[in-house]
């Protein structure tokens, strides 16, 4: 029996990693060609959101926890990075570190509270806590209230690379986002990630097998919050701006839409979803409030008829994991 099954399993595993590798190479190749064809700032925005959505997908797609408050980590990290770079004159790498550290810290607090309840309560708690931090951002002095923090200097990375150059900035964003993407991939394919998936499928069972699911959920939450923070910090440097939009609940809705549209629990879904939504917001901007209507309609359609998302459907048609 072993002889028969083993080669098949190995073959399957090889095919699986082949399709993923091929897709990864195509993705990175597109990112490298991208700035020569399209507007780099647009691409950088989409890349930041791709990382944000990957971080979000780690939680909703692989642990089954739906956070409605991820703007909290994205926005507060972007505030801290902007403040550190502008007021303290910190170098970009230190400014990003400051933002990411704050996101991780907030992740510990919010995650610790939110995982005390399951299911939809989890969603409501994260939403409420992020709204609370929105009000803090609105009233705190250092965030600049309605104006936000504008004119953030991009600075010199490690004192060498001048990020004011659009292409240098693009290369930096690309490296960080791809590293973040690979980190998420590594997490979900580690033994730790397998436990997360077990919790998603059946938490009671995972508990009965001896896993302290609370801890796993909290660590996953903090990881997700930290990576969301990294995305927010990058965004602050790209746009040289941190504002209330980044902490508002609509931002949490946006990242949810990206992940849902791309495909919950797929490796490439969040990236595809992020590009689709950012492109849509960009090209439909002249139609004003119809963007909101269209986004809402996409939610409805995705939930009713398209729950696998773009990449999920593609993977089903091609019969490969993506």
């Amino acid at each position, binding site marked *: 029996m072993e002889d028969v099954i083993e080669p098949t399993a190995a073959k399957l595993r090889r095919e699986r990693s082949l399709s993923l590798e091929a897709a990864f190479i195509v993705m990175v190749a597109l990112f490298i060609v991208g700035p020569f064809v399209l507007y780099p700032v647009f691409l950088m925005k989409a890349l930041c959101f791709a990382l944000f959505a990957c971080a979000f997908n780690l939680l909703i797609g692989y642990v089954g926890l739906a956070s409605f408050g991820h703007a909290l980590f994205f926005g507060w990290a972007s505030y801290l990075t902007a403040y550190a770079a502008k007021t303290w004159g910190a170098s970009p790498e230190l400014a990003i570190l400051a933002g990411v550290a704050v996101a991780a810290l907030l992740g510990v607090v919010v995650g610790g509270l939110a995982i005390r309840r399951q*299911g939809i309560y989890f969603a*409501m708690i994260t939403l*409420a806590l992020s709204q609370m931090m929105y009000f803090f951002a609105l009233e705190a002095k250092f965030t600049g209230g309605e104006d936000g923090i504008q004119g953030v200097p991009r600075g010199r990375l490690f004192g060498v690379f001048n990020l004011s150059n659009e292409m240098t900035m693009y290369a930096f964003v690309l490296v960080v986002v791809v590293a973040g993407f690979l980190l998420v991939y590594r997490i979900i394919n580690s033994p730790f990630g397998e436990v997360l998936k077990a919790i998603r499928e059946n938490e009671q069972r995972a508990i009965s097998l001896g896993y302290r699911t609370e801890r796993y959920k909290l660590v996953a939450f903090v990881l997700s919050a930290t990576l969301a923070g990294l995305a927010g910090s990058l965004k602050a440097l790209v746009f040289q701006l941190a504002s209330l939009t980044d902490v508002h609940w609509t931002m949490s809705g946006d990242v949810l839409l990206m992940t849902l549209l791309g495909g919950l629990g797929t490796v490439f879904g969040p990236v595809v979803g992020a590009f689709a939504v950012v492109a849509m917001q960009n090209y439909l901007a002249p139609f004003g*409030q119809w963007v909101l209507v269209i986004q809402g309609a996409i939610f*409805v359609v995705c939930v*009713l008829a398209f729950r696998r998302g773009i990449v999920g459907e593609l993977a089903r048609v091609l019969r490969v994991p993506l």
Partner: protein
Amino acid sequence: MFEIFGIPSQALFGQLLLGLINGSFYALLSLGLAVIFGMLNIINFTHGAQYMMGAFAADLLLQYVGINYWGALVIAPILIGATGIVIERLLLQHLRKLDPLYGLLLTFGLALVIEGLFRNYYGSSGLPYQVPDALRGGRNLGFMFLPNYRGWVIVLSLAVCLATWFAIERTRLGSYLRAATENPVLVRAFGINVPRMVTLTYGLGVGLAALAGVMAAPIYNVSLQMGSDLIIVVFAVVVIGGMGSILGAIVTGFVLGIVEGLTKVFYPEASNTVIFVIMAVVLLIRPAGLFGRSA
């Protein structure tokens, strides 16, 4: 005029009244959420938008049909409730076998659609809505001045909340409803049309939200943001109270409104956030919520 804890009594009672008004809306909305959740197992994210639609319906009825506040109080909840029934039939009924998360996502999308549509036609500035003639003015209670309309809102919302509680906990129809919440299959086997009850329940919950919207129209301006800001606070209220109990939702709503009002007197900076802080504390001490059964 006298002072309590160094605060002029006028200011204190004034804020208490405002808190009680806000509490009325928290109670009405969290009640609707709890009723809907009980039957459909869905958190109705559209609730805020439906509250806003109620207020706009009152305004439109006045402008185009000439129906005044009293007419709107009856007609708007019926109209908006009917749209709720359509939504349930067309969309929500297909989610019955799915994870409740999808209900949240779908109703969130609907809220965006509604907000976007209204924004196209009304812009984002608020519209004033006049207090009905019969409730103009106010009366002096000796210790404070009570505008008649505000007194009316508190009395009406208490009455509606208690009537809903009575209908669900003390009538035969309510007992069917509660039974169907516990075990829909068994209740269907007894020959009761459960899907129709589910549809009507959603319509009722949405109607409650629209009623709150009509009541709110003369107090706050009729505006697009009125629902989305409120619904998040109401979610926190629901987390604090737990959705297991109808009476719990009502009591929590009123109490938190009053707490918020008092915060405005003693520490105004925290008045926006106090309910969220209370939610965090409740989660630490009693994760299931004050009136909730542990899931």
